[in-house]
């Protein structure tokens, strides 16, 4: 039986890098998808609105773990032999797009209606309205909840371990299997996650306070 040493900590930190990589992939891909979903939700076309709303309803009603399994095995059936990183990246993008889409829709709708009307009076078309008036304001509102959701992404990447992706929690399991010191190993793992997430949480709270000037 091995005991828990600094070598193990080093291994955990290496795995943590993969957690960060997966989180970034999830955030970037999910962000692009989420932006499309948010635009779909506020679109003038009822069909687009309905499709994006269904997408959100469905993805938010299924556990991420099951999304992961369906993607992983579904892609295998379709004939793609993908690495766990790619399969996990795709599932997380699907998952994050639904949540970010809903968050950003809220932010866009939080921009006062008069801004739409005023920009319409100035003769802007819908694209210009969004691009020049609405989105820049919505962007500011969106920062705190988006940073807050990044914490969720980092935490949720722990689930990628079930399809064989060696991230921080998988590394923890591997070490625990050889050392049998669950408190030390998973305590360490939890600590590393905490160090990744807490700054994001604090940042989100900071932005929220900065934005919410009237309620101070």
């Amino acid at each position, binding site marked *: 039986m091995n005991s828990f040493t600094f070598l193990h900590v080093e291994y955990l930190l290496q795995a943590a890098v993969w957690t960060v990589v997966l989180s970034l992939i999830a955030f970037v891909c999910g962000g692009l998808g989420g932006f499309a979903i948010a635009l779909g939700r506020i679109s003038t076309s009822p069909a687009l609105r309905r499709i994006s709303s269904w997408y959100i309803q*469905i993805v*938010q*009603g*299924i*556990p*991420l*773990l*099951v*999304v992961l*399994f*369906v993607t992983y*095995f*579904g892609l*295998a*059936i*379709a*004939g793609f032999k993908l690495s766990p990183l790619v399969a996990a990246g795709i599932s997380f993008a699907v998952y994050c797009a639904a949540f970010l889409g809903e968050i950003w829709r809220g932010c866009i709708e939080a921009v006062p209606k008069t801004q739409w009307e005023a920009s319409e009076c100035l003769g802007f078309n819908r694209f210009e309205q969004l691009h020049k008036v609405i989105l820049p304001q919505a962007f500011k509102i969106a920062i705190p909840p988006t940073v807050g959701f990044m*914490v969720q992404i980092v*935490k*949720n990447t*722990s*689930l990628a*371990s*079930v399809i064989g992706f060696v991230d921080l*929690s998988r590394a*923890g*399991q591997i070490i*625990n299997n050889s050392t*049998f*010191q*669950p*408190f030390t190993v*998973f*305590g360490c*793992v*939890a600590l590393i*996650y*905490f160090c990744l*997430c*807490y700054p994001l*949480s604090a940042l989100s709270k900071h932005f929220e306070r900065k934005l919410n000037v009237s309620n101070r």
Partner: protein
Amino acid sequence: MHYTFDFMSVFVNWPRLLYGAWLTVQLSALSIVLGFVVGTLCAVAFKSKSWLLQALVKAYVEIIRNTPLLVQVFLVYFGLASIGLRLTAETAAVIALTVNVGAYTAEIMRAGINSIHPGQIEAAECLGMSKFHVYWHVVLLPAVERVYPSLTSQFILLMLASSITSQISAEELTATANLVQSETFRSFEVYVVIAVAYLALSFLFRAAFWLIGKSAFVRKRKLGTNL
């Protein structure tokens, strides 16, 4: 691509999957009730004057909210077993889920309690209500009513997250699916089926919470307005 879908081999296992779904409901319902009590107590403790209580609650909330549920589940299940406390997977799952949802509930309930206007409390004190009655009728119940939508979505997220406990083989829906999958080798079909099952469960939970809200918040039902 020569793949023939075979959902039949999954459907013949429907009694097991149904039982798994029932265990998911039990697991989630128990954790939600316990977590709600823990969270509310924490929120009340946070409003107390003792700095020690405040610091403890703050540490609890921040630690839980910034670490993944999977790691918490492992810590409870393997960690407690290593110091001699052998729990069944289901008990460990309920403990981990309760601790997890308790932290989120505490944060939501704190916001609810903060939203109660001090004038309300002063008015209640003027009416000669006891401290307990003031807290119960004027602070807690209206606070719950205000944050009820947030609580509801948090609880549904917890129900979905309970799938994570399949990793310590608590016998809920996902774990049952894993078993069926390993017997039939129809992984894609199994997981599509339970994805639909989870979707149905989340609609059921939403409907249940709506009914509970309707029956619990009499004033809202009669006046049709928010507090």
